[in-house]
């Protein structure tokens, strides 16, 4: 662990915001078709265009928004929708905790504003940047904002113009996010110390994916890997 890492942590600057924005942009473009798919699916379910766009703006978490559409029947079952939203997004809890060493040096108010745009892709990119010495928390904000913009734009196109895109898997877009996370993982590889935690995470996630409601396998796998990592540290 680098000494004094925390001392340099915890500033937010426009340079960081711009930097995060620029670094995320080429990948964020790929989010547009997913936004279009969501917007079109929402209209199909009888959600008004305005509400679909509002959902993307306020919720800003694709997987949970698609899950909510599955439950979008009259009368609206509010509690199941909210519980599903929580289950699908519970992995954010781990993302936030993992960012704590970085964000702990920001004042709480700033910290809780920054995580407003926290999502998997910008968290992954920022984690990689942190590993290579980035300490400007503006990076998270900028990379989050660009994702928010393209998600919103995509939703608006899908909701207002409609979509002839059909099944995105036909174009291979469904593998996008998996492959993207894979490329980030390669950057995070630190050597043999990672083998056991990663095996634990993979095993636990695969088993949990069969046994638990949607979304929880990420939480179970992440915790399993984290715990193995902490235990190995003791030896």
């Amino acid at each position, binding site marked *: 662990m680098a000494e004094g890492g925390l001392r340099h942590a915890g500033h937010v600057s426009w340079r960081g915001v711009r930097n995060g924005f620029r670094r995320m942009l080429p990948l964020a473009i790929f989010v547009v078709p997913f936004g279009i798919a969501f917007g079109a699916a929402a209209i199909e379910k009888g959600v008004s265009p305005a509400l679909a766009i509002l959902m993307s703006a306020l*919720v800003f*978490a694709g997987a949970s928004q698609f899950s909510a559409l599955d439950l*979008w029947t009259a009368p609206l079952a509010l509690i199941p929708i909210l519980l599903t939203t929580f289950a699908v997004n519970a992995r954010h809890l781990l993302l936030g*905790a993992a960012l704590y060493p970085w964000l702990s040096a920001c004042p709480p108010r700033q910290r809780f504003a920054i995580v407003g745009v926290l999502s998997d892709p910008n968290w992954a990119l920022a984690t990689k940047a942190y590993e290579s010495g980035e300490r400007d928390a503006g990076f998270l904000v900028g990379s989050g904002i660009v994702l928010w913009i393209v998600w919103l734009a995509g939703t608006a196109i899908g909701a207002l113009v409609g979509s002839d895109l059909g099944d995105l898997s036909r174009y291979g877009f469904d593998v996008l996010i998996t492959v993207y996370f*894979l*490329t980030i*993982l390669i950057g995070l590889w630190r050597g043999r110390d990672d083998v056991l935690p*990663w095996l634990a995470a993979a095993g636990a996630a695969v088993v949990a994916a069969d046994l638990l409601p949607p979304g929880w396998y990420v939480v179970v796998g992440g915790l*399993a890997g984290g715990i193995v990592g902490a235990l190995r540290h003791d030896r």
Partner: protein
Amino acid sequence: MIAEAEALLAVIGMAAVTYATRAGGVWLASFMTITPRTEAFLRSLSSSVLVALVVPAIVKGDAASAAAATVALGVMIVTRSAIAAITVGIVVAAAWRHAIGFMS
């Protein structure tokens, strides 16, 4: 027919729940004393969350996603370019599915 007010309430509720998941992790972690061991936990947690996202998607996905992931992994290791790896991965998945489509 779902009343617009009811739908609006659901969206606001979803937004609140989702924000709670985003803020909750940072908030809970603030009660943790950062020792070398918790730091090891958080570091392993970062990469393990990604492993937990990626591995089930490949294992439970179709052959096209597995092929795409394998080829993309190779491209990433050789070129170190995420964009190259992702582009090749998408092309492999699409080509694989078209090939299957032609055969069946």
